[in-house]
């Protein structure tokens, strides 16, 4: 498992450093070409987002990982004309299984600033694509990245890591969908116009909300806002008359007292004949009497309630992240196992060839003494030889595949190599790679 990752992220470096090492799409094509010329690196992928810049490489087997790490650091410095000493404080390096784990975690959004955010997987896919275009993607990294995509997909499918809203405006829109299901065809009324209300309205509109009514104490504000959302402005004193017709109310006026009291709300609910309504009160001081929440089919959330939803959402994400980490570990183990099986296979082939050749050779020597045999008897002897080879192979094959940990696997493979006097490896490069890792 010969992989190395060198990079920096929001965990290790401030934005001033990250921005120096951020590469645009065009730049990546250019620096990839440069990466190719770095000695000892056969395959490489460059991932650059606003929160991280990482270089993932599959180095040549005869180059020690420490040397590879240094070369990548120098390469990064050269790209941006930085001093290595300046960068060393912020860079981290992962080697072998550590690198694989890191990549799995990054792709699954476990290493993101906002754990569970969905963009990172797309960014990793972009990096993979760009590496392919600049011909820096070989079979080893391709296999690894494909696996990382599958892990990310599995994490997303089997945990709720990305399920909960993490901002107040998004939480508001999310709650609305829990009441109304699809927001398509719903109508919203905005009372007053704050920045947060604006953001929440945008979320609702993306969700499919059909009509927007805007009421503001200053009518031209209402007109301005309504124009932006393709909505209808109404004068503030008439907002009560419009309430029976809307589904969601976004309230953010600067009024010092409640603009909707319990009595009015009761009357409103009678008029609505049980149709639910959702009040999002993000004004401070509050616009809507909190007692209204007691009424059936009326759902009222103030800014603190929304914040609470966001907080539990974040907590949930952290809890789900534990599940996700377990998935990553499981996948890492199975990736290592497959990697070991791949490493072992040339040895198994060599061993089988060797045993078979020996058996045939011996058979040829003794065959003459047996005298003439019928074709059926010949076949039986062939069968016996084959069966003997398989029986002898069984134990060593199993041990090579099963050996726990890459260290143990290598020891078993080397032992087999020596014990059976296997001289010419089917792929000598693969062999040296093994002893290098």
């Amino acid at each position, binding site marked *: 498992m010969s992989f190395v990752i060198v990079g920096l992220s929001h965990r290790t470096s401030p934005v001033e450093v990250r921005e120096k090492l951020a590469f645009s799409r065009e730049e990546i094509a250019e620096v990839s070409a440069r990466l190719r010329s770095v000695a000892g690196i056969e395959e490489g992928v460059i991932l650059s987002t606003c929160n991280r810049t990482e270089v993932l490489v599959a180095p040549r087997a005869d180059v020690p990982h420490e040397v590879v790490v240094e070369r990548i650091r120098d390469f990064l410095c050269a790209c941006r004309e930085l001093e290595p000493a300046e960068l060393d404080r912020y860079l981290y390096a992962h080697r072998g299984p550590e690198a694989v784990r890191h990549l799995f975690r990054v792709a699954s959004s476990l290493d993101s600033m906002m754990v569970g955010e969905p963009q990172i997987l797309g960014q990793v896919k972009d990096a993979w694509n760009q590496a392919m275009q600049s011909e820096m993607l070989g079979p080893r990294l391709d296999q690894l990245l494909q696996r990382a995509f599958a892990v990310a997909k599995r994490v997303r499918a089997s945990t709720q890591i990305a*399920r909960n809203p993490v901002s107040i405006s998004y939480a508001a829109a999310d709650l609305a969908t829990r009441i109304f*299901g699809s927001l398509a065809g719903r109508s919203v009324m905005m009372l007053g116009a704050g920045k947060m209300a604006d953001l929440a309205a945008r979320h609702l509109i993306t969700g499919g909300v059909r009509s927007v009514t805007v009421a503001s104490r200053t009518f031209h504000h209402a007109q301005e806002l309504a124009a932006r959302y393709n909505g209808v402005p109404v004068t503030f004193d008439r907002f009560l008359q419009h309430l029976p017709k809307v589904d969601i109310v976004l309230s953010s006026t600067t009024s010092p007292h409640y603009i909707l009291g319990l009595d009015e709300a009761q009357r409103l609910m009678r008029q609505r004949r*049980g149709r639910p309504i959702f009040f999002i009160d993000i004004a401070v001081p509050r616009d809507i009497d909190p007692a209204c929440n007691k009424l059936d089919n009326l759902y009222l959330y103030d800014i603190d309630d929304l914040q609470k939803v966001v907080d539990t959402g974040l907590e949930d994400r952290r809890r789900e992240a534990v599940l996700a980490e377990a998935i990553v570990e499981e996948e890492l183990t199975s990736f290592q196992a497959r990697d070991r099986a791949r490493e072992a296979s040339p040895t198994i082939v060599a061993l089988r060839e060797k045993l078979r050749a020996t058996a045939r050779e011996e058979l040829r020597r003794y065959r003459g003494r047996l005298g003439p045999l019928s074709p059926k008897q010949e076949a039986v002897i062939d069968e016996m030889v084959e069966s003997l080879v398989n029986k002898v192979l069984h134990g060593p094959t199993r041990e090579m595949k099963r050996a726990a940990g890459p260290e143990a696997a290598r020891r078993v493979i080397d032992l087999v190599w020596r014990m059976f006097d296997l001289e010419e490896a089917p792929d000598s490069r693969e062999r040296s790679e093994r002893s290098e890792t």
Partner: protein
Amino acid sequence: MTTQWSGILLATALAFYLLGAVASVYVFLSRRKEWIPVIPGLTIAGFLIHFAGIALRGMEERAFPANDLREILFLLAWAAISVYLFAHFRLRIEIMGLLILPLVVALMLATLLIPRQPQASGPAAGLESAVRMLHIVPAILGISALFLTFAASIIYLVQEHALKSHRPVPFFARLPSLEKCERLGHQSLTWGFSLLSFVVLTGVISAGYGAREEEWSVILREKWSLLAWLIFAVVMYDRIFSGGWRGRKAAYLSILGFGVMILRMIGV
């Protein structure tokens, strides 16, 4: 004894449902989403065996297998499972398994407690049998529709409580929206109520036939189903005409009506 084979099949089906119910509780508690497909998988296996069991029972008796309460409960459980599968695959309300499967298991276990009625009269024949079929088939269809109403009402209440209390509970996110529960509850109730109305009517007629033997218990039973019918009638009336009892109250009433009806079925 020939009847044993259908019994074995039905018991096997019960075992599958039990496993399905356990799996849904496990998924609920552990939040392992990747395990969800196991639940309908087990249920479908049980469902097919269940069907074979009912069919075999029918062949053994050479009659529609609804001659005693046990058989009716087996039929009902089967109908409830088809409702669950519909909710799972068609409506994509995966949480339904958690509500319906344990109920089905309870129903089928209840059949073990009911003593096998000696079939003195044998399968009913002639006009009486026809009236009975007219009673039982729509009853089973109606009650299975009401299973959905019941489950939708419970989900509604859980979701509503979570929204009202401003405290998202675990699994909150995976529950269907209030609107979806409302719609499902209303649609299934419309079906269930219409069929139940028909059943109450035919029930009165067939009670007239059966009154000779066990007069009191039959009349008492019909009183219970009349009560269930009245409760559902209130919910229906309100949904159609005033709307004031939509939501929470309608959900509570639907659950109450369903409870009364099931108790009446088992014959408490």
